């Protein structure tokens, strides 16, 4: 089985490539990248002239909802959404039912993914049993079963002693602990960001300090334990500053940011549209600017979507009572290309790095480059493709997005996993 992707602009920052070249795939792996490659006669060819050929994009923060919440999303629907959105791999969070806090659930997710998954699926195990923040989950067995990180995402482990122990205990497995940094006392379940908009709307607000306090605590614990701490969905100017300072000190801390925290502020909540409700909440203008700056300068290592599908009935009611979370897999790449790369806020190779090599390195995943011998996970972009966000057309079962009706130019064109086309 071999395939030639001919004549595309190959952007592989990890391999130092940005040139029009061919990519020759054999037996599911990258065989050769170069100009004018001549595979044997009869090799299937994809004409990628005018397109951009990148290492497969990896989204390390996704909620696939299976097992337990199949009415929101399944491994089948979620991975199809990923493929359509240009992602060749996703890491899925542990807040399923039952919670992925033991080997049996990890095994189940991996088995389902093998049968039904359109893209690679890497489970993230829970830090504490049933996400209760009281007792460690069986981290060793979960790591052995294939968990690539540990996180109680959706909740914060409020007990600092327990979190310290989790960081220490996870050290031998060489995987990061991912922090959903939100002091829930300080945040007191505020429905949105605390600021002028929450004051006008009369919605209870959670201050940026609820995130900053926890990022500071977790950095201090990472310093104490030597663990690799990864900050999920960073969203405040203060948290960005803390991560930047910690990195400068040599602390093993990394961070991700979502497209919505890069592109929207709390102003959009004025409509009381619960498609603008998620955790952490949409922040102020200065926070957005700080996140963008940090993504450009590398303080933030990767973009992750926090794809969090819900049923319509869980989102359509009163803002304060609506579920937290929006979908992101099918909108992330088009939005980033149009809103960041086209206006020159971020150059294309940097974006590709933040979507491929960045997340791969962070979770020690294969992928992130088109080096010969690597699995042929490839995302091909069409920078001229215009689009309109239409939730009804999503492959995801989730429909909640604050970006409905947005238009732009530049989108994923083809996604290949192990040399096989998974989208379109």
């Amino acid at each position, binding site marked *: 089985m071999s395939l030639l992707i001919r004549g595309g602009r190959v952007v592989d920052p990890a391999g130092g490539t940005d040139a029009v070249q061919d990519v020759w795939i054999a037996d599911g792996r990258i065989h050769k990248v170069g100009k004018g490659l001549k595979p044997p006669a009869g090799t299937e060819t994809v004409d990628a002239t005018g397109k951009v050929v990148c290492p497969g994009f990896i989204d390390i923060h996704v909620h696939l909802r299976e097992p337990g919440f199949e009415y929101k999303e399944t491994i089948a629907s979620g991975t199809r959404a990923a493929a359509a959105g240009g992602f060749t791999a996703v890491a899925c969070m542990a807040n399923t039912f039952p919670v992925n806090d033991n080997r049996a659930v990890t095994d189940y997710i991996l088995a389902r993914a093998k049968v039904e998954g359109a893209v690679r699926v890497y489970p993230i195990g829970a830090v504490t049993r049933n996400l209760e923040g009281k007792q460690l989950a069986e981290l060793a067995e979960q790591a052995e079963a294939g968990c690539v990180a540990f996180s109680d995402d959706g909740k914060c482990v409020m007990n600092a002693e327990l979190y310290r122990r989790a960081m220490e205990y996870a050290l031998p497995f060489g995987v990061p602990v991912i922090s959903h940094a939100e002091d829930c006392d300080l945040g*007191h379940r505020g429905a949105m960001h*605390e*600021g*002028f908009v*929450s*004051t*006008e*709307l*009369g*919605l*209870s*607000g959670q*201050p940026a300090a609820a995130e900053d306090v926890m990022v500071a605590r977790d950095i201090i614990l990472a310093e104490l334990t030597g663990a690799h701490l990864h900050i999920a969905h960073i969203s405040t100017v203060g948290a960005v500053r803390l991560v930047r300072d910690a990195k400068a000190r040599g602390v093993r801390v990394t961070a991700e940011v979502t497209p919505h925290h890069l592109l929207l502020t709390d102003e959009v909540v004025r*409509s*009381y549209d619960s498609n603008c409700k998620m955790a952490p909440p949409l922040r102020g203008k200065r926070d957005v600017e700080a996140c963008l700056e940090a993504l450009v300068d590398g303080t933030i290592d990767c973009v992750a979507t926090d794809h969090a599908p819900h049923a319509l*009935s869980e989102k*359509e*009611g*009163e*803002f*304060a*009572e609506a579920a937290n979370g929006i979908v992101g897999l099918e909108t992330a790449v088009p939005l980033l290309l149009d809103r960041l790369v086209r206006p020159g806020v971020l150059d294309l190779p940097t974006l590709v790095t933040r979507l491929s090599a960045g997340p791969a390195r962070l979770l020690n995943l294969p992928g992130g480059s088109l080096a010969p011998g690597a699995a042929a996970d490839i995302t091909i972009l069409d920078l001229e493709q215009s689009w309109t966000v239409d939730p009804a057309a999503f492959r995801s079962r989730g429909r909640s997005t604050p970006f409905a009706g947005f238009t732009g130019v530049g989108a994923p064109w083809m996604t290949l996993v192990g040399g096989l086309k998974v989208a379109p």
Partner: protein
Amino acid sequence: MSWKRKDLLGMQDLDAAEIIGVLDTAASMKEIAAREIKKVPTLRGKTIVNLFYESSTRTRTSFEIAGKWLSADVINFSASGSSAEKGESLLDTARNIEAMSPDVVVVRHKAAGAPALLARHLRCGVVNAGDGAHEHPTQALLDLMTIREKKGHLEGLNVTIVGDITHSRVARSDIHGMRKMGITVTVAGPPTLIPAQCQELGVKVSHRLEEAIAHADVIVMLRLQHERMQGGFIPSLREYSRVWGLSLAKLEHCRPDVLIMHPGPVNRGVELAPEVADSAYSVILDQVANGVAVRMAVLYMLAGSKSA
């Protein structure tokens, strides 16, 4: 006057001309209350639904009387607790009510934004009778009516709103409405009960009661919810009352013609000393009377000015 809105959701949406329009209409409605037979046929054949998700006696009664004096059929629909607890979603309830073809739905809900949600989905008019800590526009209108009646004008006055600004929809509606009418608004309370970036609403913020009320033409005292101790907003009712409660002694340094207002129900002895509530400064019962007039005006403008 021209009223073009389908709904009345908040004072933030209205401009000064619209506010004056409501106040003038309300002033003419007030005359009906003095009649022997308190009924005019203006809204005969119209249906008004009071959809109250939060318990409220005076606001619901006020809307009910307003509708009845205008000869509308008024139906009270009390839905206690949140829609989620009740099992039927707010939108489903709304669609069911819509199917009964009301002309106006008056809604009170603990969730900010709930009336806006209904207004987007219902063809009939929606009046916000209080949504969470967001807005309570008819309260602001009756406050403005009362002030205009007593002072003869609105522009140039100083109004001080005292108490729990953070959780108060009355404060927000008053602030928007008063500023549009040229009133200078000061809010005063302990910093824990002043919301984030409150000054950006266009008000002065004070943390000292005596200073905040010294030059006020009107003082609006807000009701303090007893559960505020639990959130750590105040240490005790006793201390709150001593520092932020209005007593005759504190009024000594105020303007002699100052008006004391309160949206009710009053916690006597907490935010208002009983002798202040019953004093000549107090116009609390005028507010209640004007509430009916303002709601008649609003119902008339939403249901009656459309050609039937």
